């Protein structure tokens, strides 16, 4: 096989694999507009009926409201905590720092089922189960490592002399944080807000354990899924997908310049 033919074969394979990864999203979106009750072929015609039904459903509306609240709170808290941890990693050296950083970055390695159960049993003792605050607490634990990663990545590009230069020009520690570090990290902070919001908005498992009657949207969604096949699910699913993809895309665009520089250097 010639090198050129090999290259195109590889590219075709990659395209097929990406199609596999994206197929579920596409089919859901397509069928949300299908007027046929059963999402299948042949396509029965374009319809917005299911979207109308979704908007009329009170349980979905409540779930959506809960998800938005939790996502917003999660975004703010986890971005703040992620920023703190990233700055600590960047700036300080102390005994126990490795343990500290391990603690900060460990959550994504623990299956969410287990985190959810742990949250349930613990928060049960302190009375946070069944509350949105309880869900938020768990979501923050899950998503702050990602905020940490984004801010840390940005801080890696910070000229180490800039803080000293700021001190030298008369800015104390807190002023330097306010006038130099935070403005410098601003794109990463914004991206982290969007990303952690997306993670929280989509998060099912912890919410399932903890939210009780205050269901978030993914929990409500799954309850619906375990009932009969309802085309309203397609509509809800598409909307959920649209919201979270919008958040992630925004995050990527904001942090995009960094990624562009780094990935361009790969394979050189």
């Amino acid at each position, binding site marked *: 096989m010639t090198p050129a033919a090999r290259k195109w074969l*590889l*590219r075709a*394979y*990659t395209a097929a*694999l*990406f199609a*596999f*990864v*994206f*197929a*579920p999203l596409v*089919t*859901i979106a397509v069928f949300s507009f299908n007027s046929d009750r059963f*999402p*299948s072929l042949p396509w029965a015609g374009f319809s917005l009926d299911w979207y109308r039904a979704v908007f009329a459903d009170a349980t979905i509306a409540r779930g959506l409201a809960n998800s938005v609240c939790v996502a917003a709170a999660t975004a703010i808290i986890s971005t*703040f*905590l992620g920023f*703190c*941890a990233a*700055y*600590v990693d960047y700036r*300080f050296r102390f005994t126990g720092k490795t343990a500290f950083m391990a*603690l900060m970055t460990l*959550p994504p*390695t623990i*299956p*969410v*089922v*287990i985190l959810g*159960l*742990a*949250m*349930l*049993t*613990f928060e049960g003792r302190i009375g946070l189960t069944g509350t949105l605050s309880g869900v938020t*607490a768990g979501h*923050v634990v899950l998503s*702050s490592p990602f905020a940490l990663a984004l801010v840390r990545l940005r801080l890696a590009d910070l000229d180490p002399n800039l803080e000293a230069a700021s001190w030298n020009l*008369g800015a104390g*520690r807190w002023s330097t944080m306010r006038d130099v570090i935070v403005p410098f990290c601003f794109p990463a902070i914004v991206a982290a807000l969007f990303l952690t919001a*997306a*993670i929280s908005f*989509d998060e*099912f*498992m912890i919410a*399932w*354990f903890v939210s009780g009657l205050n269901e978030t949207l993914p929990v409500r*969604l*799954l309850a619906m899924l375990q009932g009969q096949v309802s085309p309203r699910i*397609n509509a809800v*699913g598409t909307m959920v*997908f649209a919201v*979270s*993809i919008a958040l*992630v895309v925004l995050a990527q665009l904001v942090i995009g310049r960094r*990624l562009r520089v780094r*990935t*361009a250097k*790969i*394979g050189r």
Partner: protein
Amino acid sequence: MATPARCLSMTASGRSKSAASLAFNLSWVTPPLLWQLLFFLVPLGFLVAVTFWSVRSFRLTPDFVLANWSHILTAGFFRSAYVYTFALAALTAVLASVVAFPAAYTMAFKVGPGSRRFLIFLLVVPFFTSYPVRIYSWQVVFSPFGIVNKLLGLMSLGPLNLLNTPWVTIVGYLTLALPLVILLQTFALANVDRTLVEAAKNLGCSPLRAVITVLIPAARVGLIVAAAFAFVLAFGDYISPLLLGGSKPPTLSVLLADQVKSGNHWPRAAVIAVVMVLTLMTILLIMLGVAYGQGRRRTS
């Protein structure tokens, strides 16, 4: 002589200066530390403790019994669920690694930097969005009324009962793990010194042999890490076995959720959780040991 307009202490002692510095430093360490301790470490530790508690009249009561452990570990359904979960996760790790590799290879070496950026961007998106929705989509696609069966029907085959089988569960696992595995493999391959592969080709290796004998060993660490992540994701996932696998046989995560939902038997669920964590930690340690162990460690 210019003096700053702001009042600056010129008489403060050295001791209070370093106190101010300490206060500043602690302000950044404390919030994340406290939060992680309170909502991550303590709950997990508490979970281990709960494995020894008992449920009396439907209420969780502090205790020290080994009943939960013996009940779960001796149960047939637990053991079969364990083997099943482990086998599926291992299969996913292998499949994901193999399936992802040509795509990662392409992204690392066979596309231009602009396309690579775009493809990475595309991969990050599903990684963070709507996993339950995507699995539901597969459920629909594979359902008796779904597209696949409709297509089979056109060819006068089926309808096949595709749902509630391990294979469809694996499709779900792959949906979960592939984006991450492709990304990690791409970075691992791209960080390999290009000249190694070129030297191999120069010495007469066919491209395929160069890949097998030079590239893969060189990228070993990243490839194993990617597989490890796939294993962890598949081992702990709840949604795919629930929606696609039909919970028959159940995986450990389904078992865990059942113990919670029906009967509120949290201690038993906790036992399952602790067993899962121990298994994962062991597997991770082994895999990372293999990754960093033999031969020279390559710094990326």
